[in-house]
């Protein structure tokens, strides 16, 4: 099992189904890898080794008894430490939830288990999935932030500790760390995956995110988790398509809307701008049609609306704890809560109204092409461990609820990962992933940090 850590989810699942890879040996290999690299990277909060190996053995027995394997049978998956896990601590890396042990699994965790996944452990998050940095280090360069808030999940996947992990995104917490660590991140449409049993930041923004190394793997995890859940008021009651079939029906060269005027390119460094133009050129050479599009006027207020909504809803969730235990919060989260407590109620509602208009405008823009194309981040991961980086290129899509996927697209002059981001209309994940998979193939970029190959 020397190289099992390099397997993608789909490769591992296939080898397990064919009897070529033992779930126990696979889990053991990843646990050994975690033992080796965890001291340097600090990606994990809780790993119950015995539970992992017991579950892996059960998966073996299920296969031996002829049970039909699920999509993810025997595949280890990491969970950001905001997902409820029955009987296992779920701390949100906070002092407030330090001893919290849920008595049920989050719906998405239960669905992963139903699909045969082995829950490998709980990965580090920034405190309550907000912006106070975590101790996790970037495997590409430990002096640079790994991003956040899904820092542990992203680093675990990038360093080969697990083939897949769950994150979440309220601003940019899945796709930004995916880009900083050179992996694939999927933020589905708001409401596509249940948040029942997920510690919230902001109810009307929070989205479960997927972190993997290949685009196809994102489709597998999405297939396992997507679908209505009456326990989540934001859950979308819409049928779940066969995502791999939808990807296959969008397997040809796509029509891409390049957003190279205004917001994204104004904020990007010259290196990122040049890189994104070069990526678009490479995709065009491979057959994609590139159309330059302009952003709607409503984009101007979208980032501020997102911050208002996030801070007010965050303050509402934390208000009771905060009255008595404000000193136990990190400084950035504390400031967010305080701002949320002060924002006038009418301002919050106006922000939600503006957001609806913005969503309609952005959906209309996305419908003009197969997918919109932007840089993934304004710059590669900053050399600063006191920040989680800039979420500016993710927050507008999160606010609009549109699905986005980030794929690695190259390295910066400093040897750090660069990525590009695609967005599609709501509930068009199948097409979006089909486009991203085609671009992944056309670019041929598969990044692995040299010290963790």
């Amino acid at each position, binding site marked *: 099992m020397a190289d099992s850590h390099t397997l993608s989810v789909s490769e591992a699942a296939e080898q397990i189904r064919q009897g070529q890879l033992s779930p126990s040996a696979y889990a053991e290999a990843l646990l050994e890898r975690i033992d080796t690299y965890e001291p340097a990277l600090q990606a994990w909060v809780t790993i119950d080794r015995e539970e992992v190996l017991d579950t892996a053995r059960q998966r073996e027995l299920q296969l031996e008894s002829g049970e039909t394997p699920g999509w993810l049978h025997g595949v280890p998956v990491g969970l950001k430490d905001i997902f409820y896990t029955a009987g296992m601590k779920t701390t949100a890396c906070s002092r407030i939830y330090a001893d919290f042990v849920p008595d049920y699994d989050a719906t998405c965790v239960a669905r992963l288990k139903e699909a045969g996944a082995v829950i490998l452990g709980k990965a580090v998050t920034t405190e309550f999935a907000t912006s106070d940095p975590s101790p996790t280090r970037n495997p590409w360069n430990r002096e640079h932030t790994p991003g956040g808030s899904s820092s542990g999940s992203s680093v675990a996947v990038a360093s080969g500790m697990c083939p897949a992990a769950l994150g979440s995104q309220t601003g940019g917490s899945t796709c930004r760390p995916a880009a900083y660590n050179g992996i694939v991140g999927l933020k589905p449409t*708001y*409401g596509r995956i249940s948040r029942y049993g997920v510690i919230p930041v902001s109810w*009307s923004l929070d989205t479960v995110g997927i972190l993997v190394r290949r685009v196809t793997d994102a489709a597998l995890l999405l297939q396992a988790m997507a679908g209505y859940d009456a326990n989540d*008021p*934001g859950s*979308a009651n819409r049928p779940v398509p066969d995502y791999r079939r939808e990807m296959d029906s969008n397997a040809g060269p796509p029509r891409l809307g390049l957003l190279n005027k205004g917001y994204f390119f104004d904020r990007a460094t010259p290196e990122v701008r040049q890189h994104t133009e070069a990526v678009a050129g490479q995709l065009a050479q491979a057959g994609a049609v590139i159309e330059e599009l302009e952003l709607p006027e409503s984009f*101007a*207020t979208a980032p*501020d*609306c997102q*911050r*208002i909504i996030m801070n*007010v809803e965050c303050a509402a969730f934390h208000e009771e704890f905060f009255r008595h235990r404000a000193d136990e919060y990190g400084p950035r989260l504390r*400031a967010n809560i*305080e*701002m949320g*407590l*002060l*924002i*006038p*109620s*009418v*301002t*919050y*509602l*106006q*922000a*939600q*109204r*503006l*957001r*609806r*208009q913005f*969503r309609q405008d952005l959906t209309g823009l996305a419908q003009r092409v197969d997918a919109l194309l932007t840089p993934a981040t304004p710059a590669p991961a900053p050399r600063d461990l006191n920040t989680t980086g800039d979420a500016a290129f993710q927050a507008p899509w999160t606010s609009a*609820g549109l699905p986005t996927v980030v794929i690695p697209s190259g390295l910066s002059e400093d040897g750090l990962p660069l990525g590009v981001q695609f967005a599609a209309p*709501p509930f068009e994940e199948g097409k979006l992933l089909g486009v991203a998979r085609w671009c992944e193939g056309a670019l041929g970029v598969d990044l692995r940090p040299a010290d963790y190959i």
Partner: protein
Amino acid sequence: MADTTPDISQESILRQLTAQAEARWGADYVDRNRALLELAAEYATLVSNNLPDTETEPGFYQ
């Protein structure tokens, strides 16, 4: 959350937020968190000066 007034200049919003913050957490807090209050006032002012079409409902979710 408090109510807004008809006056939507950034200065007036900042005055309201500062008064609320002082009532909640005291004058020391206001002195230490001037930048945060100014940022909140900036967000609120931008929203107040870019109101949506009259018939747009919030549409919290889908």
